[in-house]
């Protein structure tokens, strides 16, 4: 006798009701990052070694700013969801909760820092113009 009702197996969400959502979000961000990764590498490679004024001017331009911003945001969201998988595998109980919270705080802090820097550089370029 199967305990799983036909409706349950059709919905396919399992006991936790959210695993498929997490997996799908990882798939979407993975495809986005596969496109962004080469672009981001080129963007950063062009900026390394420049003096400060040129770095600020470079990231004030639309394409480097958009690529860097998108990569950091999508990348860190992918990171938060990715560490969640590892935390669920290796940590239990209170440690698990603390690790999930810390990973989310850290990830969003990195996003905020990058967006702040890019906005400052973008506005700087407008003021100079």
């Amino acid at each position, binding site marked *: 006798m199967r305990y799983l009702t036909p409706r349950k197996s059709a919905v396919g969400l399992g006991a936790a009701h959210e695993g498929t959502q997490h997996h799908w979000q990882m798939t979407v961000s993975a495809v986005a990052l596969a496109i962004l990764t080469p672009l981001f590498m080129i963007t950063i490679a062009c900026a390394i070694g420049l003096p400060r004024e040129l770095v600020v001017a470079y990231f004030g331009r639309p394409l480097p700013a958009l690529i860097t911003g998108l990569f950091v945001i999508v990348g860190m969201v992918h*990171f938060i969801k990715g560490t969640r998988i590892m935390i669920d595998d290796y940590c239990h109980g209170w440690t698990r909760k603390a690790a999930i919270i810390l990973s989310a705080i850290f990830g969003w802090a990195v996003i905020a820092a990058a967006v702040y820097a890019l906005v400052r550089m973008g506005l700087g370029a407008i003021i100079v113009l």
Partner: protein
Amino acid sequence: MADVNRGNRPLSPHLQVYRLPLAAVTSIMTRITGHALVAGIVLIVWWLVAAVASPGAFACADWVMRSWLGFIILTGSMWALWYHMLAGIRHLFYDAGYGLEIGQAERSSQALIAGSVLLAILTLIIFFLF
């Protein structure tokens, strides 16, 4: 005691001396590279924030970026990023149900290592040429 066939039964794996297959190693490396990439992104974001903070802060971050430690972190991250990206693409194929046979996984693991090293060397060459 029951009369069991002691010579012919399968042995349980001896966990201390068990050598991981290549597909298992490349799978674990996906997770390790993904988490290690934090070092590279933190260094780059620190450098970006320092550029808008002050000349002194930028001089400090830029010095770290260009030091041998920065070179190791950035070059390592660059390889890890290629590796994690190729492994992620392999995972998309796994999810779609392709490449799951042992022989296929073995071959894709070899391609993964070779491809990531090749792309990393290519990236370094292009970076130092231009």
